[in-house]
């Protein structure tokens, strides 16, 4: 197996397309978006089913990629997170078929 990176971005639902565009432009070969149902942050406490406006909903964007692409995305994501609410974390993982990332 081969070392790659798992980038996990917890971000506002409305801002997720922006994050995804950044990942795509940085050359990452894919991502998957997961829904979240509630959360707590330093400023917010939200719950999907309890807010009809859905304006505080978060989602989780997961993208497995090579170091190079993830580094290429980092600066733009940092800039995105200066405007939008979100948390980025990157972990090391092993993958099959390394040429795909």
């Amino acid at each position, binding site marked *: 197996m081969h070392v790659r990176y798992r980038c996990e971005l917890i971000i506002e639902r409305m*801002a997720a397309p922006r994050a995804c565009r950044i990942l795509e432009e940085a050359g990452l070969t894919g991502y998957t978006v997961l829904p979240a149902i509630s959360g707590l942050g330093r400023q*917010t406490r939200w719950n999907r089913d309890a807010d*009809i406006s859905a*304006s505080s909903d978060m989602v989780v964007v997961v993208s497995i990629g090579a170091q190079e692409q993830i580094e290429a995305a980092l600066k733009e994501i940092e800039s*995105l997170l200066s*405007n939008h609410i979100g948390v980025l974390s990157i972990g090391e993982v092993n993958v099959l078929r390394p040429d795909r990332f």
Partner: protein
Amino acid sequence: MDIALATLLSPIVLFFLLGLGAALLRSQMTIPEAFAKGLAIYLMMSIGLKGGVEISKGQLGWDAGLVMMSAVGLSFLLPVLAFALLRLTTRLDRIDAAAAAAHYGSISIVTFVAAGQAVAAAGLEAAGYLVAVAALMEVPAIISALVIANRGGARSEAVAGSDKGELAREVLLNASVVVLLGALVIGWITGEAGMQAVAPFFVTPFQGVLCLFLLDMGLSAGRGLRNGWRQLGPGTIAFGVYMPLVSALLAAGVAALNGMPAGDAALLITLAASASYIAVPAAMRLAMPKARPSIYLTLSLGITFPFNLILGLPLYIWLAKMVSAGVA
């Protein structure tokens, strides 16, 4: 006042209060988001269709055109006023104030529907094109607020990853604009005949669906209040109550100038007095991500919506009667 009591004891208000109470008592009950969103689309289809069919019966004259234009003007103007009031009377910064102001220039379709029912209960009639007015008033306020927010010092740079058209698409093609205007046009095209086939779904059960939806809104409003009220100072809370009255008075003036009949005037006044809590918050997350939802949502959904639903409506109908009596 009879209308006031009738309003307070209508099933939709009572279900709203049920939800509000349950949330304030910290019940964990929820209505699933997917279900509530489906109901919201149903409600907008129904309102649009009914408006369209009404339009198809008569003729859209100059007067309707003038009302539409005035309404768009109101939607542009109200955020300017709201922003000034917020900046004068509260400690909200420019961004938070502009975002909140956008909500008050735009409209709440549920408040509009409740007004329609109160108007009918008061023995008045309202024209179908008011639905189009509602749809038209959704957007201009957002533009106003953006202009206001951007004038303050540093020009806003594009947020990383943002796409040129995305804000325009979100604002002009959000679900409520698409469904409301789309259904309006469809109702207009198919007319009374086409409506007959779909009335058992879109007309007869409408009131009941509204009850279910208002239960959910009560839950949302109650939870919003519980989590958010601490962030609102007394000045901000007061704004949530007097701003609808200010808007209502302005709209009453517009209604008088246009010589609108009482039913139509009541709806226009309600639209002006109501504040958005779905379309504008979404747009604000894109356009002004730094504005805090806990401020603008608590204000609009937690304070202004209940105020309008319970106390505002009878007032606006009374105001509309005054205005149209003065005109006649």
